[in-house]
């Protein structure tokens, strides 16, 4: 079964054992594909992973540190086949990650997103409220991952309404108007977690708006909200109590790996679709950890063909809760992300600022 076949199936339809068999074969051939077409990948994986035989399990497959994409532009396609270079938003002072996409990989990415979104949204395009300012996609020369993510999601909506202005203040009249027209039926709300909380929920908390027919999809991580001590549970509870919104789906993913879109289930855990997976590793030994134990998250995806990003060791901590959990309607691994690995500060007498661990 190829990635194209998997993308035509429902995203959580394969038991883990079957899925692993397919992923192992496909990821092994992707590994050889990138060895042939990306000299840096061939050199790094040959030295980092000395075993010469093919992997017998997913955990044995070679992987790269995700930070490598901040340092190098790795590509497995000739320059004239590069369709676009996707760049992470990266907060000020941080080097952004960059990945090369060709048409084929970009198309797979669109299909993967559709495969997953259809699962929670249904086949129809829904009226869509964007917790964004129209500016984020206005300047197409400055294409950030945030803009790309937004454009990708806009395909699943119609009658798009931007809820924020340039200064990221709420455009209340427009939001009221949107709800008056579409609030009685199913509609989609999309935005980045921090903006959804601070620029959307905060100002409407006391207004009694009815969002009970909405489906909220958000991503971008909890880092900023954790600073304000907002937990995922509080986030959900606040929406339920003040707007009646209950269908809330966070998703975990990263610009460095197209296709690894891990969407929350109704239980608040993330689920891996058929064409992607996670492995939790011991931070010291890098050995795979069993469900229930916290470690470093490795992400796997069948989509990256134009650059060697099919197996990446992230800098996030996570835990797998269950494999093929009963009752939830989703097969595969369910897991949580517990945030970034805490920074280490090195001591020493040289200019350590420059050498500080990210």
């Amino acid at each position: 079964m190829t990635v194209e076949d998997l993308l035509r199936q429902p995203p959580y339809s394969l038991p883990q054992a079957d899925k692993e068999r397919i992923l192992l074969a496909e990821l092994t051939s992707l590994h050889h594909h990138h060895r042939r077409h990306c000299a840096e990948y061939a050199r790094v994986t040959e030295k980092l992973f000395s075993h010469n035989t093919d992997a017998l399990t997913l955990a044995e497959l070679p992987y790269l540190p995700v930070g490598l994409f901040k340092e190098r532009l790795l590509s497995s396609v000739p320059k004239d086949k590069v369709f676009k270079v996707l760049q992470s938003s990266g907060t000020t002072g941080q080097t952004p990650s960059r990945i090369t996409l060709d048409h084929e990989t970009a198309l797979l990415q669109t299909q993967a997103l559709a495969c997953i979104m259809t699962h929670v949204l249904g086949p129809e395009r829904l009226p869509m409220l964007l917790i964004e300012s129209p500016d984020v996609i206005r300047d197409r020369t400055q294409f950030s991952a945030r803009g790309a993510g937004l454009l990708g999601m806009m395909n699943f909506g119609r009658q798009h309404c931007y809820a924020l202005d340039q200064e990221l203040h709420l455009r209340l009249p427009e939001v009221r108007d949107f709800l008056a027209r579409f609030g009685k039926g199913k509609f989609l709300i999309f935005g980045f977690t921090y903006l959804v909380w601070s620029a959307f929920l905060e100002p409407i908390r006391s207004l009694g708006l009815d969002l009970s027919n909405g489906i909220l999809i958000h991503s971008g991580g909890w880092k900023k909200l954790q600073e304000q001590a907002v937990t995922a549970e509080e986030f959900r509870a606040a929406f339920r109590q003040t707007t009646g919104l209950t269908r809330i789906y966070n998703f975990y993913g990263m610009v460095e790996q197209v296709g690894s879109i891990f969407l929350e289930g109704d239980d608040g855990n993330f689920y891996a679709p058929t064409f992607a997976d996670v492995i939790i590793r011991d931070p010291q030994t890098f050995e795979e950890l069993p469900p229930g134990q916290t470690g470093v998250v490795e992400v796997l995806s069948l989509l990256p063909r134009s650059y060697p990003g099919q197996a990446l060791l992230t800098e996030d901590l996570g835990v797998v809760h269950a494999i093929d959990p009963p009752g939830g309607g989703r097969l595969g691994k369910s897991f949580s992300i517990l945030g970034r690995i805490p920074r280490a500060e090195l001591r020493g007498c040289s200019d350590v600022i420059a050498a500080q661990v990210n």
Partner: protein
Amino acid sequence: MQVQSLFPAQGSVALEELKGQVSGGNVNRPFDAGVVEACIELSQRLLRDRDARRYPELLALGFWMRKTELHRLQQQFDQLQREDRWLVPCGTVLHLPPRNVDTMFVYSWLLSALTGNCNVIRLSPQRSESTDMLLRFLSETLEQASPSAKQATWIVSYGHEEEPTQVLSSICDMRVIWGGDHTVSTIRRILLPPHARETVFADRFSLAAIDAASYLELDQSRRSALAKQFFDDSFWFDQMACSSPRLVIWCGSQTHAAAASADFFPRVNDYAVLHQAVQPAQCMHRFLSSSLAILDRPVTNYRRFPALSVLTLSTLDKFDRSHPGGGVFFECQVERLEEIAPVLRRRDQTLTWFGFPGEELRKLATSLNGRALDRIVPIGQALQFGRFWDGNDLLQSFCRQVFIGGIEPLLPS
């Protein structure tokens, strides 16, 4: 402008007022009894204190400045004195120690104070737990010390502002800048009085050399002991101290080198895992920096352990001295120690060694002729601070030398 005073007063102080105080500070005679007494007292506090015992670098400091050592230092100083060339204090010394080697400010202060100088030390507002502990010990000691010692030290704290450094530089006779090429070039732009001098300690690189055959002749317990000493050299300051080894040279045949390395690094790792918490972020950092090294350097082999990574190089030609720290070791095999001489550079500070006759080490130093290496010490002594550092004799660096001509010899020869 206000800065934070940490000693003698605690709290905010106007820069102008501080300037006045320091200008009226004590310049003592070298090895003033009150100052020596205070140093002994500080050493005893460090060695006695339960909390301080948790930090090996504080214990090492306490041990280094214990009574017998201070007396030895005084004897060495006395031997330097000649009747026609008298060593006297420079006057007021401004110390700018590194933020991340916690103990450095005390080493710097100690040699300067013992030789009689009046001292101003600038500490960063972001201080580690052990720096604060050391600061507390030093303050308490000086508080109870004789006036000669007490009125010869000011400790202040401020950020990256230029003004305080400017004002303090304007009244000092000597400035000492510890660490970091960037820091050195930033502070060097700030003027000193024309007569004042400056000693700087810039970024350095250090390496270890092990004679593979001698290592393989060691029994199990001696191998482990050497691994422990190498751990102390490398890991106390996360391999970021300028004298910590980052490159290991294996001398001897390829077979011996490979066998010795395969035995040695697992021992270092085992010791590190037992004696220092392995931080997950550092493991990730090592994995990334190893990947980059594989792309950029002639790496033939990579070994990953929980507490360290080893990257084998096929050659030292054009060896890049930039280094991520945190337990990344490069290694290379050579037949004979002298082969490393052509690749050594001015930046190379300390060579820690095992298994070479003194003859061979002296030959290396002589053949380098000042082009590289300021210290050649056994493995285990990389961080052992001493009066000879970065090519200076610090007992003399903090002094002026007064020449007295045309006088009768004191003792008839």
